């Protein structure tokens, strides 16, 4: 049984179908890419899976549990954690605080500790955050404010926060947007390592090089419909995909 299985996922906005009858499944331990041109419905899909939008139709089963209609924090509580497309961070907090917030789900802090504890965070959380920071290479900037990080590091931080929540499935929304070759290579390597450490990954990305080099399976959306699915090699040679992606130009019309 797949870790995540969405059946005929549908979402209308007014009369417009942003996502219609999409079937999507992710097996434990996979890296799956969700691609498609702008406006194809990828982000809507993510919002449906993570509980930020309620589907108009269809079901979402995660880890054997039907999570359709769950609220975002409940979805996250089951181990399905997402990042955001735009660089969404707690800008006025330090890098470490951002990561510590990621550990929210696993934090057990009683009132007594809250009021009388000497440390703000229990030692295990501090070491936990240290580990994540170390792993993502953000340790040297731990005490900087998030807003002062360079763009690439901000994107990595958003992954680090999601990681701190110890997800079973990580939804990454455009993790390498706006990065140069070197940076995106670094991030995609990080993504692979995360998978190797046991976290399944579903990612949306425009940078095809990154997608093709990292994902084992790719799902292509266009106009809210599933256009194709297969290995990167299969997908990138599909004429339908190339046309959807690069556009038809005028000669076809």
């Amino acid at each position, binding site marked *: 049984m797949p870790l995540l299985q969405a059946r005929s996922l549908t979402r209308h906005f007014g009369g417009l179908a942003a996502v219609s009858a999409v079937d999507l499944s992710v097996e434990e331990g996979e890296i799956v890419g969700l691609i498609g041109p702008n406006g194809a419905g990828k982000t809507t899909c993510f919002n449906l899976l993570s509980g930020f939008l309620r589907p108009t139709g269809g079901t979402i089963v995660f880890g054997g549990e039907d999570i359709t209609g769950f609220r975002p924090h409940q979805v996250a509580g089951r181990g399905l954690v997402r990042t955001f497309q735009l660089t969404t961070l707690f800008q006025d907090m330090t890098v470490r605080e951002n990561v510590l917030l990621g550990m929210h789900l696993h934090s057990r802090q009683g009132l007594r500790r*809250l009021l009388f504890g000497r440390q*703000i965070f229990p030692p295990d959380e501090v070491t936990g955050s240290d580990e994540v920071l170390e792993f993502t290479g953000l340790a040297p900037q731990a*005490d900087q404010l998030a807003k002062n990080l360079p763009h690439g590091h901000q994107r990595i931080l958003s992954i680090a926060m999601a990681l701190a929540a110890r997800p079973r499935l990580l939804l990454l929304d455009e993790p390498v947007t706006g990065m140069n070759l070197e940076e995106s290579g670094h991030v995609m390597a990080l993504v692979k390592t995360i998978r190797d450490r046991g976290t399944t990954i579903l990612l949306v990305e425009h940078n095809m090089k990154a997608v093709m080099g990292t994902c084992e399976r790719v799902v292509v959306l266009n106009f809210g419909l599933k256009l194709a699915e297969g290995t990167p090699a299969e997908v990138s040679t599909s004429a339908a995909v190339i046309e959807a992606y690069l556009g038809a130009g005028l000669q076809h019309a």
Partner: protein
Amino acid sequence: MPSNARAATVFVAVVALLIALPFVGGDYYIYLFALVFINVILAASLRPSLTCGQLNIGHSAFMCIGAYTSALLAKNLGVPFEVSLLCGALLAAVVGLAIGYPSLRLRGVYFAMVTVAFVEAIRLIASIWVPLTRGNAGLSVPKPSLLGMSLATRTSQYYLALVLMLIVLVILYKLERSRLGLVWKSIGMAENLAQSLGVDIANHKLLAFTLGCFFAGVAGAFYAHFIRFLFPPEFGFLLATNILVYNFVGGRGHFAGPVVGAVFLSLLSEPFRGSPYETIFFSIVMLLTILFLPGGLITLPGKLAGLRRWRPTSGTYAPPASA
């Protein structure tokens, strides 16, 4: 660490000064500062819900509930101050919970306006429910007695206020610096992101709101036993906006903001007292403060330092790192 040590030194110095005040200052300052302490509690207790991004213009309603509850318990049933204070604060919290829960789904200004409606509704109830509250005739309240001792003198009441304020500030400070405070801050900054990390924002907002109501109830209970006369019109919209303004004028960027704001605005009238233009001066100073320090008074040292050193980067105020 040195910055924390320095802040701690300043804190201890301020507390020492306040403890010494009855010995060095006159009776009037004792009285005045006890009132300032009440305002500090009110301002600081609004901060958690503001931090969560809730614009609350109804905080004085909960002060009103705390004040009337503790006053009526003390007056009619002879309940000692420490118990009536707790009951007042608890009732304020319960009402806060009851109004906060359904209001959570209201956004931005709609939430703010419901709190405005609520504060006026509570004021009107206090003024209409004459058999209980004596309405607009005002309710006189006995002196506080603590652990069986009557706190009859202004000095003893001053110390009571000081201790209450310090307890409330320490609790609120601890909370702000805890994971809970961090979560509140995260909700205010990016609600979606917090949710995606598994934060139940509804519960956390409600907790922040209710907690604020509780401490507003504490302030109200002390106010009742200090001023010893309750008059419904005083707990209206105007007081609620004042509490909000303490936070904005002091500054939202730091825990000390509402404290500085409450102290500054509560004392601002003093130099002008006796002038027929007192309120005019007061409002001009307030207007200028907000026009030139939109980040609040706590950004003033940063701005001054920035001017002095002429280094543009030092002009932005940054709250101290927590770890």
